[in-house]
């Protein structure tokens, strides 16, 4: 569970998150949407402990993992090492156990044959799939996705979305910042619409897509419906 209370964040004089309060329950799949610069990434980065917050507070109950737009795999380690390093050094698992778990996860995303490959030998979609299972290998039950497909071409986007979709069914809490509206419509139960750092809609997915409450919400959806056709 994530509880956010009055979260405010400035970059210099610019308020990027404005008094944001929201609670995310266990096993919820929540889409975080809004135009670029609206604060989606900043919100996730604050929750991930990568940005200092200026006002308010948040609590996270559970183990947090994060998936980045640019994957951030460790390039000097093999795929398997990327997956086992933190479980061995942070969770103190034995090497055998960490490897067994990593291999199982790799198998689930169809990348077991790439276990010994280095990240540079992988496609963008494959890298992101590895990054997702790297987060899961840490026994995370909450995963923050920071625009996981924005750096990928359409074909790879689909393979990554499929993996997220599969794991969404396993009871993991997800907060997904993305522009993939069709995907969210399908996978998420709830959407948060951020506009210039302010949470302007917090609605069940179906209700939001059927009828946004705010004018900004309508405009935002129109832009995407236009792009979809």
């Amino acid at each position: 569970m994530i509880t956010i209370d009055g979260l405010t964040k400035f970059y210099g004089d610019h308020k990027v998150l404005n008094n944001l309060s929201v609670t995310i329950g266990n096993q919820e799949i929540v889409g975080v949407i809004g135009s670029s610069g609206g604060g989606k990434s900043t919100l996730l980065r604050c929750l991930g402990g990568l940005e200092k917050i200026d006002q308010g507070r948040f609590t996270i109950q559970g183990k947090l993992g994060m998936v980045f737009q640019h994957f951030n795999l460790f390039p000097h380690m093999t795929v398997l090492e990327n997956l086992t390093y933190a479980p061995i050094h942070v969770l103190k698992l034995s090497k055998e156990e960490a490897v067994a778990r990593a291999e199982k996860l790799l198998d689930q995303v169809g990348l077991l044959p790439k276990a010994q490959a280095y990240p540079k030998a992988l496609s963008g979609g494959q890298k992101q799939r590895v990054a997702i299972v790297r987060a899961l290998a840490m026994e995370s039950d909450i995963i923050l996705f920071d625009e996981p497909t924005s750096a990928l071409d359409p074909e790879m986007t689909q393979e990554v979305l499929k993996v997220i979709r599969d794991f969404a069914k396993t009871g993991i809490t997800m907060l997904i910042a993305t522009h993939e509206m069709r995907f969210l419509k399908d996978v998420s139960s709830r959407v948060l619409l951020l506009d210039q750092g302010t949470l302007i809609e917090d609605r069940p997915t179906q209700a939001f897509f059927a009828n946004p409450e705010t004018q900004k919400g309508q405009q935002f959806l129109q832009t995407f419906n236009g792009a979809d056709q």
Partner: protein
Amino acid sequence: MSFDWLPNAAFIIQGTVTTLEYTLLSVSGGVILGLLLAFAKLSHHKSIQWAAQFYTSIFRGTPLLLQLFIVYFGIPNLTGYQIGVFPAGVIAFSLNSAAYISETMRAGIQSIDKGQFEAAHVLGISKFLTMRDIILPQAVRIILPALVNEMISMLKETALISTLGELDIMKRANEVAAQTYHYFEPLIIAAISYYLLVLLLTYILKCIEKRQLA
């Protein structure tokens, strides 16, 4: 008096061992101290940052020969404890080398993508392990060529130790010159000795760069 090539050349070339000892030990010392200084430069504490910058500025801003004399003559004068030529040389050269190496290392560490630190942070990896196992192994690839260049400079600069009487390549050439009254030949033999050592290091550097491109 004619110049007796073989024994004189052999005498001078024996100095390569001494020269290499100074070079390798000084650069090793420089790497260790340089790494600490690099961390200091990346510290969040302004005073630590400033102290490390000041260190670099002093050691870059004064002649190495003067630094060597301060360590060998100045500090014993102050403390009353006489230090040997070899430790004095290695200490002075290490301190000087660290000033340059720390800059290289700082730049190398800073060149690593911020996302690497962030991924490690979110995975719960400690700062120490992040540095040791995630950041430094990547930074070394960037730093290594500059380190070999530093070693090449250091190799030539160790000739300063001859001023304190250490029998390195330079001093040996000078001694042969003083005994035979031939200056050209011993100095050329010394020059060739240094040059071959530098060529060797350059070759190693090329191999490293080639391996990195692969």
